[in-house]
């Protein structure tokens, strides 16, 4: 149960973390993970410290996670591994997939430094600068969903990603207006093409601006800018309710007040029951089970929690973690691990002595999940969509790299069990939890350990224990969490 909770509300646990958590009652564990606001935010200060996973700087440059995208990727993975607020990172990943924005398009327009800031800038790194998109998603991760929608409508990365800066009164541009309904809120089938045209007009005038010395790529940055002159002031009519009284028309209003259109529209999307149900379903699949049809009673309860608590995500999650379904052993290991989840869990369970988190960057790309680079605005194809022959080879090969890197630690940890292969196997299966293997499979693992006569020598442990570890982490069973 405890390990299940830690996998779902986080990325799993290292042996030391597991020992610490196991001293607490399960409800306390859940409360601490869910209500993470009281937990420390000092994770970034541990980057480069002993006892934490390493990072790799680019040749001759300091570690620059706010201005170099590869370093931003390393920082995010570092947080997934070491944050005291694992759910915050888990939700940031969830929302990154939901509001899927790709760095490369933005970098093509504004260069790598400013594009990296737009994706994941820490405002503390440069006076006056805006939080990057992922930082904003962390800020709203368990808060107000309409607040997050509005923040994304005004997010410079999102503005450029969906061409909002080109959307003007005389030339409305539908990209953002369509996707905010199709992908970010209502879902397809709940709006018409006429609604798309009207939504595009709502966001006319939403733009961005550069602040600071344009020539200084590391110290200039982008912020939101509303340009009233570009805003369409005429009324906008929708096919669904915009106002609580059922009114479907956003009234004509002066250009100077034009941003109010977006506030009205986003609140309407936020309180629409279709949005509630869609978010509840997505969160259910992310936290409970994606291999069976969602439990409609729980989805309804989650949607109602959303609608009854000012569209607050924490309220939805509270309903979720307090449900019987969340703790039902039948739902254990019924999710496909996203590549980031797989990599982080494998590192936490295997160890990271002398390892740089940079070693996971290219494998993640090969597994199909390059952070800050979702394939399109629809996000990644999750669930079985993660699994292909090439992605499974990448997962197996990452397990190989990791186990080889931790060869000596793995062998030393197994020394107390060296008398027989079966004891080593039993120890390893307990350390690397899965849904369980069939007897034929564990027999194959024993056979592997006995590929040549078992001696239990240090030298043999240093070959076969990493070998066994890669077999388990690379198994089909381990790909589920």
């Amino acid at each position: 149960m405890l390990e299940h909770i830690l996998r779902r509300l986080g990325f799993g646990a290292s042996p030391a973390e597991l020992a610490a958590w196991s001293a607490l009652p399960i409800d306390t564990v859940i409360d601490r993970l869910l209500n993470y606001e009281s937990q420390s935010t000092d994770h970034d200060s541990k980057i480069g410290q002993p006892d934490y996973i390493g990072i790799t700087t680019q040749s001759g440059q300091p570690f620059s996670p706010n201005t170099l995208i590869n370093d931003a990727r390393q920082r995010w993975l570092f947080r997934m591994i070491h944050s005291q607020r694992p759910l915050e990172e888990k939700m940031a990943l969830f929302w990154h997939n939901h509001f899927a924005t790709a760095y490369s398009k933005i970098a093509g327009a504004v260069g790598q430094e400013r594009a990296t800031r737009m994706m994941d800038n820490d405002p503390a790194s440069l006076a006056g600068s805006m939080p990057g998109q992922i930082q904003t998603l962390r800020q709203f991760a368990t808060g107000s969903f309409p607040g997050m929608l509005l923040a994304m409508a005004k997010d410079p990365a999102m503005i450029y990603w969906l061409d909002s800066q080109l959307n003007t009164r005389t030339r409305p541009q539908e990209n953002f207006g369509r996707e905010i309904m199709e992908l970010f809120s209502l879902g397809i089938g709940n709006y018409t093409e006429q609604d798309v045209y009207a939504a595009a007009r709502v966001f006319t005038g939403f733009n961005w601006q550069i602040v600071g010395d344009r020539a200084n790529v590391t110290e200039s940055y982008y912020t939101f800018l509303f340009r009233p002159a570009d805003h369409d002031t005429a009324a906008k009519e929708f096919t669904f309710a915009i106002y609580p009284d059922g009114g479907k028309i956003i009234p004509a209003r002066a250009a100077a007040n034009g941003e109010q259109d977006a506030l009205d529209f986003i609140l309407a999307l936020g309180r629409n029951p279709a949005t509630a149900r869609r978010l509840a379903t997505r969160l259910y699949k992310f936290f409970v089970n994606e291999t069976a049809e969602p439990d409609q009673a729980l989805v309804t309860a989650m949607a109602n929690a959303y609608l009854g608590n000012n569209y607050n995500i924490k309220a939805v999650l509270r309903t979720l973690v307090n449900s019987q379904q969340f703790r039902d052993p039948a739902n254990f290991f019924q999710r496909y691990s996203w590549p980031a989840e797989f990599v982080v869990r494998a590192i936490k369970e295997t160890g990271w002595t002398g390892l740089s988190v940079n070693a996971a960057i290219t494998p993640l790309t090969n597994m199909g999940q390059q952070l800050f680079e979702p394939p399109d605005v629809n996000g990644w194809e999750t669930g079985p969509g993660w699994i292909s022959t090439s992605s499974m080879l990448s997962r197996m090969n990452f397990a190989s790299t990791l186990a080889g890197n931790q060869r000596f630690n793995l062998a030393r940890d197994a020394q107390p069990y060296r008398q027989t292969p079966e004891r080593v196997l039993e120890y390893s299966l307990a350390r690397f939890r899965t849904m369980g293997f069939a007897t034929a499979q564990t027999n194959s693992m024993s056979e592997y350990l006995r590929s040549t006569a078992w001696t239990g020598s240090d030298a043999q442990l240093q070959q076969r224990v990493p070998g066994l570890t890669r077999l388990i982490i690379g198994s089909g069973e381990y790909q589920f969490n």
Partner: protein
Amino acid sequence: MNFSRRQFVKGGVTAFTFGFAAPQVLCDIALAQGVPSRNLVVVYLSGGNDSLSTVIPYRDPFYASRRPTLAIPAANVLQIGTDSSGVELGLHPRLTGLRSIFDGGRLAIVQRTGYANQSRSHFTGFDIWGTASTTNTSGTGWLGRYLDLVPPPLDPLVAWNTVRETPRPLMARTVGVPAITSPATYAFSSPNTGAEATFEKTAQTKISSHLPVDRPHLAFVNSTTQAALGTLDRVATVATYRPAVTYPNNALGQALTAVAGAMNKQIGTKVFWVQTGGFDTHANQGANQGSYVNLMATLGDGLKAFYDDLSAQGMLNNTVVLVYSEFGRRISENGSAGTDHGAGANMMLLGGLVRGGIYGTAPNLSMDPANPTLENSNADVKWETDFRGVYAKILDNWLGSNSVAILGADYRAGAPNVI
């Protein structure tokens, strides 16, 4: 092999209880299935191709007036003659390679393909084209259903997906399609060397042979691993292919090189999936320069290199290339020097046995309310030829299969006679 989550839910997972043929008999199967056999290469243009910029009705007066910054001057297009309605057409200036294939009679252009009430969503649109259904867009794909009908035992390399995610068109009930993005990196590594590495590979193969019927998702993952480990050696041979022609050094060029390599090494693959992106040109699409010129350069140069490669190897008559996108784009340009999501668009086919030429009629771009070739208040191109008619031609006349069974209806009547 891949199933989508939706398909697991919808199709019932119990169907997923097959095993692949053992690797040692694969070559025999490939031979028995007739190597060199006919194959289909699908090149999907991701994002919604602005096909009015690919095949241009350059004399239409509304073409220039509705596209003040995007219209390509008549003097610059690569003229290919007129269609049956007398509209003069030209290829994009950067498609010189395709023009030479057209002139050789081996490029077919089918104008205004689509379907009624065309979706403007990338994702729904892609799924409709993929499933060949406007109503059940979460089911199996049309190519997947073709693969399901290929007589067993099936070679795991019967189809080859060059991108990481299995696209909707390749989703099948009983056949998993390997994703092989790069033959050179398709390998199994080890923390150990020599015999120890071999022990691991043997063990991983045994462990992944567990395909429990009561755990279909696990069976799916394990059989994917089986397919990967069982095809490594043959895929490695493809990585040794050195084409005589020079392919463009980009992702499409690399994917097409791998396809040509698989044909050259007689892997026996019947369906290849290739895609190239960037076609969602909402902004800065450009006319004589800009993103669209680059897209056409990538597409045209890649296809020409592939065509020349196959031609040099004498394999042109075994191959049909199908090029399509999920929708066309709006006729009038937007304020961003780009185009928003539209409807009807062109499909293209090329290959040694393709009947080249121009099929169907071009849209008339006038704003006349009675204009029958446009829809959505004359904003978008209206479909004339059901895209499934082209699928039917490929399935029946090229792959020798049964289009009615695969497409769920008879789309043969009136389908363009492209192959």
